[in-house]
């Protein structure tokens, strides 16, 4: 029973990691850049939702706030691409990495200015409700997180594999110049993917905030989401979710069965092991670069 309980809480955490990792992977798939600020994006999404929903701020109804928060997050994602990232296209990867890390710093600073540095939690209708079957008690919010994440991953996967826009996105990253020649509006597509990743970050943030409290440093769990994305292979959406689940499940088990001090390094140790022995993740997509 105890193992099952650990498993479920791990799965729910893992889903949040997986959602952040989805954000990385989407942007990586379409623009070959890695958004190191995705964790802070998620934190921002949570705070935007709190700003719309909680009684001390705007106090809108829950459903309205969700829509409003996702629209705002999409707009922020689009504007970031339009105003900042589009201008650095063609810079070295190091520059883009640093740029997104700096973005994360700025987001943390701005959120701290607006909402303060104390932990806040989202007032929501499903908190504290349990589902019990067969002697196992599940928090409703955990179940909601797992279900929504699975649906979202499936939708995004189908979108990338089947829809015309999704294929155009893949084309834009596989060979930008050729995509231009084929009439793919590369710039507009990149703006769209950033907006989409903003929305995914918003969803992740809302789910995270229903599970517990958030503060401006919450975005640092983005580093664990890296582990998820790397384990999954950094180019595969289902891989990212699977990686997130693996990291999420390892954590509670490590803290239960390993001595204190060793348990919190488990996800990073796993990340390093994967990078050493299988550098391109479990679902490898790397090949040698041609000149």
């Amino acid at each position, binding site marked *: 029973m105890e193992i099952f309980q650990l498993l479920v809480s791990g799965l729910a955490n893992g889903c949040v990691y997986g959602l952040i990792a989805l954000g990385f992977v989407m942007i990586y798939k379409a623009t070959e850049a890695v958004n190191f600020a995705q964790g802070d994006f998620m934190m921002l999404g949570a705070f935007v939702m709190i700003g719309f929903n909680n009684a001390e701020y705007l106090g809108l109804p829950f459903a309205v706030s969700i829509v409003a928060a996702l629209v705002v997050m999409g707009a922020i994602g689009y504007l970031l691409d339009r105003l900042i990232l589009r201008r650095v296209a*063609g810079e070295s990867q190091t520059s883009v990495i640093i*740029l997104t890390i700096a973005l994360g710093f700025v987001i*943390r*600073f701005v959120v701290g200015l607006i909402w303060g540095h104390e932990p806040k939690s989202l007032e929501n209708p499903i908190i504290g409700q349990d589902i019990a079957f067969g002697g196992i008690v599940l928090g409703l919010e955990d179940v909601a997180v797992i279900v929504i994440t699975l649906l979202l991953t499936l939708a995004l996967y189908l979108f990338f594999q089947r829809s015309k826009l999704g294929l155009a996105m893949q084309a834009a990253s596989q*060979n930008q110049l050729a995509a231009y020649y084929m009439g793919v509006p590369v710039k507009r597509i990149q703006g769209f993917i950033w907006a989409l990743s903003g929305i995914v970050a918003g969803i992740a943030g809302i789910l995270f905030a229903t599970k517990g409290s958030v503060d401006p440093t919450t975005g640092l769990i983005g580093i664990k989401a890296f582990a998820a994305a790397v384990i999954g292979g950094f180019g595969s959406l289902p891989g990212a979710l699977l990686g997130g689940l693996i990291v999420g499940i390892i954590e509670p088990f490590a803290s239960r069965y390993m001595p204190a001090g060793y348990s919190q390094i488990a996800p990073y140790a796993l990340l390093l092991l994967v990078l050493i022995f299988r550098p391109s993740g479990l679902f490898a997509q790397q090949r040698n670069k041609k000149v």
Partner: protein
Amino acid sequence: MRVHFKTSYNQDIRLFEDKWTLFVYSLLIILSFLMPYILDVFYLGEMTNVLIWAIAGLGLMLLTGHTGQASLGHAAFLALGCYSYAILVQKGVPFLIAFPLSSVITGVVGMIVAIPALRLRGIYLAIATLAMSILVDDVIVLAEPFTGGVSGIFSEPIFLFGMEIDRWGTPIAFYYVALVTIIIVTFGYANIMRSPLGRSFVAVRDSEVSAQAMGVNIARTKMISFGLSCAITGLAGALMGLFAGIFNNETFSVVISIQLLMMIVIGGLGSIHGAFFGAIIIGFLPQFLSISKEYVGDFIGGSAVAIPGLEFGVFGMILIAFIMFEPNGIYGRWVKIRTWFELFPFYRKGMFKRQKSFLKTERLQ
């Protein structure tokens, strides 16, 4: 404008382009030796801090700026240098042996770390080094018998030529220790960059495949680059420990790694000058912010308000502005300004324009 008439190939790799450059740099060195007589004690301490950061920046510049391997984990090597130096000194090893030895230890560990890192490139390397930096934080806590864990350990004052040197008691002597170290490191660095090894670093950065085709041993070059970079960083770490006096696992957190990388990007990736420019920004930004906050406070009539996280917020914005408008950093801007004056009035707008590059994936689909 100075025109160089080159009569031999060796002129291309001279350490100083001409006598004027030699004169300027000699002047700079003399001026930095006279600093203790110009600045008061507080600013001398800040200068020492800048020099130490510049050493660390040089270490990372060798790896990221010249070999093209982005590392988000150099705080780990700072920590290694710092702890190995402090532990060696505690065991009774004199400064003149312990200081270089801590650098050698860090360099050797860096080379060992490079072996698995050789298979990684780009973002994967950045993420692996980031994870390493986080791990080291926990490892320091776990290795408490050696490192003192969370409570930390002291770095004892330096005993050199019968003199006791520490940051608070004898700030001038400590400044000279940092200054001599950085001059030796910079001189060595500049010489490496003239040698075949240095040019193979740059070749690996610009295109691994082309470098390999030209006969550069990629694995060996990257390993040496890692080793040298970590050795320099180890020196900076030892000095940082001496500067801080007491340190624990949080002194070298992952934030320091990120700050280091940001520093060399602001300074200008791929130039020795960049490490110095970046260190000046890092070193003086907190002072500048607190002074400007006072001015703003006076201006709007209220008292200076404390805004948590302001430093990092401003730092992030400066960085974003640099990457957007001057990707070559302060050094790149300096080169442009200098060229403008040298060529006056013939400077053209497009002189430093780079060819547009289009993106191509490295993934299989």
